[in-house]
């Protein structure tokens, strides 16, 4: 298992989002998954998404796998809102102190606004979408379970799903192509590296939601409808 991580250090994020602790010792991937109560198929699918461009997940997932997926997504939300976005924001603030060009102040504002948009989106998923999905699972196990959100459906979530990667791209272009440099070379590089790290993870995050979570929840919904 450890060699998989050594080959692509970004997979450290994958481990964290799954709640898997290092050191991994000499354990195989299957052993690590068993120790952490994770379906190996899900782990492999996600790892493949991290490792390959255009990987199309194939494994048929069971309804209860949704629980693992939701936990994974919740953990990555925590990484976004408590770690990487605040880190980027503070790097921009430091840059702003060194580089007194007025544009840098605009960048700080740009990113601040963007961060609040992202937080809003994550909040929506944490407070509306995920609880709804967990209730669906509850309903499968116990048909009499009274759903709190009866009007909601996964289609609505799909519509709400906007492109949060766009502004990251904008910022990368501004930093590389346009923003005047002044004493900020090291910080700028750090900032760019964090932006790429975030983008890498976000990209996989949205693939998990679009290619795996949403279709699977759609299946659960129609399964429950049939039962009615």
């Amino acid at each position, binding site marked *: 298992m450890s060699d998989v991580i050594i080959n692509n250090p970004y997979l450290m994020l994958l481990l964290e989002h799954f709640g898997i602790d290092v050191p991994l010792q000499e354990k195989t991937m299957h052993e690590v998954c068993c120790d952490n109560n994770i379906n190996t198929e899900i782990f492999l699918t996600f790892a493949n998404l991290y490792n390959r461009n255009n990987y199309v997940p194939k494994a048929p997932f069971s309804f209860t796998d949704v629980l693992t997926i939701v936990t994974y997504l919740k953990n990555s939300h925590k990484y976004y809102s408590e770690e990487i976005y605040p880190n980027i924001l503070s790097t921009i603030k430091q840059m702003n102190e060194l580089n007194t060009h*007025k544009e840098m102040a605009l960048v700080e504002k740009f990113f601040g606004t963007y961060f609040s948009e992202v937080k809003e989106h994550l909040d929506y998923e944490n407070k509306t979408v995920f609880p709804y999905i967990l209730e669906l699972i509850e309903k499968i196990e116990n048909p009499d379970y009274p759903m709190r959100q009866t009007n909601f459906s996964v289609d609505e979530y799909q519509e709400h799903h906007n492109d949060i990667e766009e502004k990251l791209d904008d910022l990368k272009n501004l930093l590389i192509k346009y923003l005047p440099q002044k004493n900020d070379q090291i910080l700028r590089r750090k900032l760019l590296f964090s932006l790429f790290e975030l983008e890498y993870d976000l990209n996989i995050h949205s693939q998990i939601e679009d290619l795996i979570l949403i279709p699977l929840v759609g299946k659960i919904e129609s399964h429950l409808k049939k039962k009615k």
Partner: protein
Amino acid sequence: MIAETSSIVYEGLAGIIYKTGAKTLISRAHTFEEIQQSCAKRRCELIIINPSFVQNNVKPFHTLKNQFENLKWIGLVYAYYDQSLLSLFDAAINISDSSEMISAVVQKALDHTPLKHSHAEDVLSDREIDILKLLTTGLANKEIADKLNISVNTVITHRKNISHKTGIKSVSGLTIYAVVKKLITLENLTE
């Protein structure tokens, strides 16, 4: 960019082109969608394409061709294709061509690219600057169209070109670009 599903063919062709000393970056596309995505993302001068990519995508191919007029297309032919399909490309490379022939075809296609190695392609036109300025004041596409007496579609096309050239899509990002380029001053910005 080389659009080719076979790794042997791709690696071989890329190797030949690099060997000619061409100062270029070669990327690879596996599907027609990938070609569309990368064209939209970064500037590409030349696409060497296996005609099978186009066979079932003739319509989107024409759209792409019209959208990126300066882009050259070279067919990479190692199977039988109808002449009408092959005539869509600017030139062709055959699987049996020698390295010299291939590099000549590639060189010729690149030489004819107008504005080659110039930054002019990424610089906004006067009209695009007009639109960018209005955008930063917070006007919507429709309002800009009315103000300049042009159609909303034209505004949208200009906006696409602006984003394509700068790599920036959001209005707030473009505003920072406009300030850096001194197209607007901070005082012009409405809070």
